[in-house]
């Protein structure tokens, strides 16, 4: 049975107690790539995962709208950045049909590669990332108009449907390469410089997201979306513009996911709709599993969940080759069925005093009586 608390989250509002964690996270981000240069891209993906988990938690954890379709914005961002980056130098249609179009062979990739000078590349990637964020943000209210009429599980199914529709639509859009995909511009530097460059981008995007969400959760906005989570009708009756708040919350997720998609697309080097841009059964479901594992609705939960999940994933990838997907599905089932409060929720229940939380005995008694009657 879950316990009832007075003054929950005091760990999360106590900056001094959290300070060691900030320092540890920052130190890890700076030192890890120097210590483990061979794993630099895996660590970069870890930061992407942290971003995924935190952006999902705005909606899922804090607002109670469990989206299975957040990966849509990731893919939109990826494609927007590809179009902008390629389109600044070449005609997109010609580029996709010449290089990395329907054929996608090594030879046709080679034609598309090396056509961007360093200046064109860096200029393109800056505008690409910005455009990705902006366009993904614009898509959020558009999809919200469709989906926010749905509640609870219907919202989850609806958002899943959107995430599954997007790759099908893009896959039949020949101008952006269709199902064959697009070869992204190639980083002009050496392989090491390329990894470091993308590591910095992933790290920076995760840190910016982290700080922004930290700030966001200290505003009235968080209280409003928490009210929507607790009881949407009452929240509306209290004068909260629920639809507007839902749209803004989704737009915030979308902005950072779009940016992340743009970076990830460039990091991968070649994008196509099903596996890279809109990977619903991988990233799409990771986004949900990570905050649940860490403890949704808390600030540190998604971060912790992402770290634990990513490490577990890399280990299963290494040691359970072939069975990693089955193991992953099992992990999701076990997390959802047996461990839904997550690591943070579990810790909070186990050591309430560490979190400065006091168990509300009178409320517990009242509930016991209520259940007994």
């Amino acid at each position, binding site marked *: 049975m879950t316990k009832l608390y007075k003054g929950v989250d005091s760990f999360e509002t106590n900056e001094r107690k959290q300070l060691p964690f900030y320092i540890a996270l920052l130190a890890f981000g700076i030192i890890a790539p120097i210590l483990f240069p061979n794993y630099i891209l895996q660590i970069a993906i870890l930061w992407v995962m942290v971003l995924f988990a935190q952006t999902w938690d705005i909606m899922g954890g804090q607002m109670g709208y469990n989206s299975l379709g957040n990966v849509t914005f990731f893919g939109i961002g990826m494609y927007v950045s590809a179009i902008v980056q390629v389109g600044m130098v070449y005609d997109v249609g010609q580029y996709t049909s010449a290089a990395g179009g329907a054929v996608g062979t090594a030879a046709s990739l080679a034609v598309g590669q090396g056509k961007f000078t360093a200046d064109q590349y860096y200029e393109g990637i800056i505008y690409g990332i910005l455009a990705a964020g902006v366009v993904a943000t614009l898509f959020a209210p558009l999809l919200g108009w469709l989906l926010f009429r749905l509640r609870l599980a219907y919202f989850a199914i609806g958002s899943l449907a959107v995430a599954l529709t997007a790759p*099908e639509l893009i896959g039949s859009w020949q101008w952006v390469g269709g199902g064959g995909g697009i070869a992204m511009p190639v980083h002009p530097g050496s392989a090491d410089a390329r990894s470091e460059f993308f590591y910095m981008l992933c790290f920076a995007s995760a840190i910016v997201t982290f700080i922004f969400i930290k700030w966001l959760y200290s505003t009235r906005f968080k209280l409003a979306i928490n009210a929507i989570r607790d009881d949407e009708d009452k929240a509306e009756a209290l004068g909260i513009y629920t639809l507007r708040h839902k749209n803004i919350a989704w737009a915030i997720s979308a902005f950072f996911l779009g940016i992340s998609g743009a970076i990830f697309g460039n990091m991968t080097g070649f994008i196509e709709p099903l596996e890279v841009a809109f990977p619903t059964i991988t990233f799409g479901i990771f986004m949900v599993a990570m905050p649940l594992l860490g403890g949704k609705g808390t600030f540190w939960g998604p971060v912790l969940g992402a770290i634990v999940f990513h490490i577990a994933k890399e280990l299963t990838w290494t040691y359970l080759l072939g069975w990693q997907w089955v193991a992953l599905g099992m992990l*999701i089932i076990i997390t959802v069925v047996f461990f839904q409060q997550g690591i943070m929720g579990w810790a909070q229940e186990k050591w309430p005093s560490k979190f400065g939380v006091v168990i509300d005995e009178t409320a517990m008694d009242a509930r016991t009586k209520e259940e007994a009657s």
Partner: protein
Amino acid sequence: MFGNLQILYAAPMLNLQLIIDGVLIGAIFALAAYGLALVWGVMNVKNLAQGDFVILGGYIAWYAQKTWGIHPIVMMPAVMVILFIFGWLLYITIIRLVINRDLFTSLLATFGLGLVIQQALNLAFGPEVQVATSGLETRTFFAGLQIAEIKVISLVLCSVLALIIILFMKRSRMGQAIRATSQDARAARIMGIDTDKVYAFTFSLNSAICGAAGVLIAMTWNIQPFYGITYSIRSFVIVTAAGLGNLPGVIIAALGLGAAEQYGGFILGLELQVAFLLIMLLGVLGYRQIQMAKLRQVVQ
């Protein structure tokens, strides 16, 4: 796209062909959708692994044919029994624990379940598209109308199965218990119905029905480890459109969906067929919500 529309206008027989194909396929959708409606209505579990049960059933029939040469239709009862036991095991291990939780829990748990099933199938049989051969022909009727015999047989089998299920639900003791539990689980418990057993039976029955649908899909269409999600979505479209506990509605919606999908696939092109299906889902969900909103206003 408009070219295809003109073809349809110019060739009325083609319309008939699409409608017949759609109805014959839709009958199979109806089976899976009815299973979902059952589980949804009785246990309030939204099973996203529905389509993966279908594909699993198809793979068992296909494998039996490949290794022992058993005809899939002969194999169908065995598949249903295997899937029934499979469903029971799943109920004991997972589903039992999510029934009383919020809807998202069951949705995500069954999504994870679907992931495990499809990946296990992928590991066991590889990602190729498989077809179980029925050994029956496709007949050509007047004016080039083509009907595959197996599709007609599958329609007959679907009807027989549906009839058995209806009779079972109406007449048998367990069927009555299932209906009582779906109306009011608490009252059913008070009346001495072992609701836990009813839930286990309902879920197992659902997976057996899905297995039967899968055998038919494996013969009339094709199966692949990752095709499951489309069947889950079809079931959701049908059930959301028809409403729970409404068998005639489920059948009509399923046949309609089958025909609509054939039309959509023909007009928009095959590569957009899945997108068309998903947009149907969004449309149906949206329509239902608008209806609900109107209802709320009336009540207020």
